[in-house]
């Protein structure tokens, strides 16, 4: 039983395609732009199509999650059935077709081993570029797989990836803008300054009231003449000198 299952796993499928046991994955998590609202980043299929002949082209197929199962891997890329421009009404498109030589195995040090899906904006309405790697029209979810083609037929395909859902932008209108309340510092500052100002005003009023009542001769707050009073400062003390000095 087991050898038969192993044979089935690597044997050509019903439509003549070899099924490769590889699930396309999103790129390493340290990329900030791993998933945006219209693009996502996949790991390149390095060391995946190990049996491919030189001259094989590897295509990426992007499909709506709901329609992934209906996809026929034998459909030729760069034809209207797999054109980007009519996606999503044709439920899948093929893009990023490149020679297997661009995915050397093992990866050279310093290589970016990622594929950005959705980076070409110039050709998204150009019907002459059906394999355009255009930005995705909605948040998805999408599934992707890699298909290997020689010049005429499809040779091999990987499994479908897990569903990829893109980000959705929130509206900024609902952002709460006001702070929670007043800070402690501000309340203390206001309270202390108000009290000080009130005290000063009260003193001024009391001062003026006593001065007015004093100048009109009626009884005042400071009825007892104080022992220490301030004299007008005279620069010359000549008039104060006792006569004996002479």
């Amino acid at each position, binding site marked *: 039983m087991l050898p038969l299952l192993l044979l089935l796993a690597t044997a050509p499928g019903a439509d003549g395609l070899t099924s490769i046991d590889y699930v396309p994955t999103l790129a390493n998590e*340290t*990329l*900030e*732009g*791993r998933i*945006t*609202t*219209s*693009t996502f*980043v996949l790991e390149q299929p390095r060391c995946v199509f190990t049996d491919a002949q030189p001259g094989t082209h590897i295509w990426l197929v992007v499909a709506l999650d709901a329609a992934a199962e209906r996809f026929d891997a034998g459909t030729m890329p760069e034809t209207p059935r797999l054109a980007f421009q009519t996606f999503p009404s044709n439920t899948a498109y093929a893009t990023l077709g490149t020679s297997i030589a661009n995915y050397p195995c093992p990866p050279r040090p310093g290589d*970016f081993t*990622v594929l*950005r899906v*959705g*980076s*070409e*904006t110039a050709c998204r309405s150009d019907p002459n570029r059906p394999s355009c790697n*255009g*930005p995705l029209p909605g948040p998805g979810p999408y599934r992707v797989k890699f298909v290997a083609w020689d010049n005429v037929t499809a040779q091999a395909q990987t499994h479908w990836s897990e569903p990829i859902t893109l*980000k959705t*932008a*929130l*509206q*900024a209108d609902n*952002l*709460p*803008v*006001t*702070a929670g*309340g*007043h*800070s402690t*510092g*501000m309340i203390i*500052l*206001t309270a*202390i*300054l*108000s009290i*000080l*100002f009130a*005290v*000063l*005003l009260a*003193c*001024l009023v009391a*001062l003026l009231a*006593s*001065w007015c009542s004093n100048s009109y001769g009626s009884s005042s707050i*400071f009825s007892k003449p*104080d*022992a*220490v*009073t*301030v*004299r*007008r*400062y005279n620069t010359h003390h000549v008039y104060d000198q006792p006569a004996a000095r002479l």
Partner: protein
Amino acid sequence: MSKDDNSVHIFQGLLILGNVVIGMCGIALTAECIFFVSDPHGLYPLLEATENDDIYAAAWIGIFVGFALFSLSVLGITGVIKSNKTLLLVYIILMLITYAFEMASCITAATHQDFLTPNLFLKQMLERYQKMETDNNNDKWMSEGVTKTWNNLMLQNHCCGVHGPSDWQKYASAFRSSYNDADYPWPHQCCVMDARGSPVNLDGCKLGVPGYYNSNGCYDAISGPMNRQAWGVAWFGFAILCWTFWVLLGTMFYWSRIEY
């Protein structure tokens, strides 16, 4: 008699000292507020676009109050030396008016500081940065101010957005309606620039590869100077007013003791 004269002279000396300190603090307040009003960090357009620039109003009041304090302290010193009731009464009344203005400035600065939150600047950035379809001249002026200020901020402080580049992905914005997401997941000012002012690696920046884009937010670069301005105006003014309170009380007491 001499002992009483001595205590009078000591009191006069204290009042003169108090007024000298007020005068110097007044000059310091004027200088500090001129510094803030000159907007060395170029953040004024952000406040202007919130239509509430109270901390700048408080700084403007501070300039004039500082100068008034200096002038009145000179008047006060003259009044105390001459023991002139009229001069001192004028001094007290004008000082109280100046006190009221400075109080307004301090309270305004302290209140407005509570208003400056990250979400305020985030919402403003999302609504105004690179806004192309403006309703009227005022809207156009404010949006251009915000755009220019943010571009300068992001380039000079090597930062992106309020919390980070994810602000541009998480929220819809005026920027997003003019610049598509695939080419501009975040503004190109968030990319690490070379000496000529162009991105070192634009693809790396768009992908978000660490080292090719600025991942930290600009909120610290905005709130730092603004908080320093609010605190500088509010609490230095508070300190001056606390000192002035005692000098004024002393002057009023002195005034009540002067006999013609």
